[in-house]
C-alpha cells in the first residue's frame, strides 16, 4: 500500500512541532557533535596536506639568517656539496621562499600582504645519504652555529611533533564527539518515544481500523531522520562558516618553519560534509529505529 506523501509530511511536521524544545535539543546535540567530528577531520587533512610538503627525501633544512651575507651562503653551499654524506641540496632564496609562502597561504591575502620576501629566511633543503634519524641529526647539527645559520630544522622531528599532536587531538575530539553522538541518539530516541506517547490514542485507533504497521511506523522514523539530517546540515553550515577562522587559528608557516599552511581543499571539504551528512542520518535512523522497535507495539 502506498503511504501518501502529504500524510507523511503532515504527521512528521506535527510530531516535530509537538516537542519543540526536545527536538531542538536533539538537533543541537547532533549539530555540535558532528561539528566536532568535522573539525577534527579538517584538522587531520590539514596536517596531512601540510606534511606532504616534506616529500622528495628532504630530511632537514638549514635556515639562514635573513641578514646572511652572500659569502656565508656560498661557503655553506660548497661545504654541503662537498660533503660525502649529502646526496642532494636545494637552495631556496628569499624570492622562492616568498613564492612558496604565497601558494601556501593563497586564501589568506592579508597575511601575504603583511609579509614581504625580505621577511623570509633563505634556506638549504638537504637530502642526506643515510636517512636514519640519528645519522640525519648528527649530520644536521654540524651546521648549527655556523656563521650565517639561524637554525637547523629536522623534518622527522617537526613532522612527528605535528602528527602526534594532530592524532592526539583527533582522538580526543573523536572520543568527545562519540559521547555526544550517543547522547544525540538517545535524545532522538526519547523525542520519538514522547511523540508516540502523545499520539498513543491515534496509534490505538490506527491499529484498530487496520492501518499497516509500516504506515504507523514511518512518520516516527522520518522524524528521527529529519532531526539527524537537520543537525548534520547545521554542522556543515557551521563548519563552512568557520573554515576561514580555522585556517588562521592553526599555526602558520612562520610558527613551524617549512610546514606550510594547513590547507583543506574544496574536494576534501565535500568529502567531510558528506561524511557528516551520512553520520547524521545514521544517528537519526538508529535512534528512531530503536524507539520504533522497542516502544511502538504494532
Amino acid at each position, binding site marked *: 500500500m502506498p503511504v501518501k506523501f502529504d500524510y507523511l509530511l503532515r504527521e512528521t511536521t506535527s510530531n516535530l512541532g509537538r516537542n519543540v524544545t526536545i527536538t531542538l535539543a536533539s538537533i543541537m546535540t547532533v549539530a555540535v557533535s558532528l561539528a566536532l567530528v568535522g573539525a577534527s577531520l579538517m584538522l587531520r587533512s590539514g596536517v596531512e596536506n601540510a606534511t606532504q610538503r616534506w616529500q622528495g627525501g628532504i630530511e632537514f633544512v638549514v635556515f639562514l639568517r635573513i641578514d646572511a651575507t652572500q659569502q656565508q651562503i656560498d661557503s655553506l653551499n660548497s661545504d654541503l656539496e662537498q660533503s660525502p654524506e649529502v646526496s642532494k641540496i636545494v637552495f631556496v632564496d628569499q624570492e622562492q621562499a616568498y613564492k612558496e609562502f604565497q601558494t601556501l597561504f593563497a586564501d589568506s591575502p592579508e597575511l601575504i600582504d603583511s609579509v614581504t620576501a625580505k621577511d623570509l629566511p633563505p634556506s638549504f633543503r638537504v637530502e642526506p645519504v643515510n636517512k636514519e634519524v640519528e645519522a640525519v641529526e648528527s649530520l644536521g647539527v654540524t651546521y648549527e652555529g655556523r656563521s650565517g645559520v639561524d637554525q637547523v630544522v629536522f623534518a622527522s622531528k617537526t613532522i612527528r611533533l605535528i602528527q602526534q599532536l594532530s592524532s592526539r587531538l583527533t582522538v580526543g575530539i573523536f572520543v568527545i564527539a562519540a559521547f555526544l553522538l550517543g547522547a544525540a541518539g538517545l535524545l532522538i530516541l526519547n523525542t520519538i518515544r514522547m511523540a508516540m506517547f502523545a499520539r498513543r490514542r491515534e496509534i490505538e*485507533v490506527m491499529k*484498530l481500523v*487496520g492501518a499497516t504497521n509500516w504506515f*504507523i511506523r514511518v512518520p516516527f522514523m522520518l522524524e528521527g531522520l529529519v532531526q539527524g539530517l537537520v543537525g548534520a546540515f547545521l554542522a556543515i553550515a557551521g563548519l563552512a562558516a568557520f573554515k576561514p577562522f580555522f585556517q588562521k587559528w592553526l599555526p602558520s608557516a612562520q610558527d613551524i618553519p617549512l610546514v606550510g599552511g594547513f590547507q583543506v581543499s574544496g574536494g576534501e571539504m565535500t568529502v567531510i560534509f558528506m561524511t557528516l551528512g551520512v553520520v547524521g542520518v545514521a544517528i537519526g535512523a538508529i535512534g528512531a529505529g530503536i524507539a520504533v522497535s522497542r516502544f511502538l507495539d504494532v
Partner: protein
Amino acid sequence: MITLENVTKTYKNSTVALRDANVEIAKGEFVFLVGASGSGKSTFIRLLNKEETPEKGHIYVAGKDIGQLSGWKIPYLRRNIGCVFQDFKLLPTKTVFENVAFALEVIGRPRSVIDSQVPAILDLVGLGHKSDGFPTELSGGEQQRVSVARAFVNRPLILLADEPTGNLDPATSVGIMKLLDRINKTGTTVVMATHDRGIVDTMRRRVIEIDRGAIVRDQARGVYE
C-alpha cells in the same frame, strides 16, 4: 462467518478467560454475549480481532484461520472488522468528520472516497449536521454514534461491540441499538458484549452466556437470563 473450535485462552496470571469454547456464528447474525464482569466476554471479542491469540483451538474469521495469521496480515483482517467500545475511543483533537475520515485515511483510501463516504455514513448515524464539531461538544450518545460511524464507514463484514451502551442512559442506548440493528440489516454480522438486560430482553436475538470462561448457554431469540 465466525467459528471457534475448542478455543482456550489463559492469561499470564493463569486466569482462564475462555475454556474450550465452540461457537459458530453465521453471516448476518446478531449475537449478544452476556455474563458477569470478568466472565470472558471481552476476551471473546479480542480474540476475534486478534488483539489476543488463543492458547489452544482454532478461530476462523471469514474462512481464514486467524491463529495462523502472520503479524503483517493482521491489519488486513481488521479492515473487515469494525469495533465499537464503551469509551468510544474518539480522538479529541479531530472533528467528527476527521475522526471518521481518519479510519479511511490510514488504510490508504483516496480523498475522493473519503469525501463521499464520510458524509454518507454521518447522515446514516444522524450526525450529518455536526460533522465539524469536536467530540467534547457532543453528548455521550452522539459520541457513540460517531464511533459506530467510524467502525462502519469501511463497510466491514463484522461489527464487534464491547459494551457499547455501558456509558449511556437507557433512552440513548435504544438509539444506539436501533443503529446497530440497521447495520445488521445490511448483512453485517454483529457481535455485542453487554450487561444491559433491557436491551437483550427487548431485541430477542441469539444470546451466548459465558460464565468464568465457559460457554454455559447458547440460545436463539434468547433473553438475558
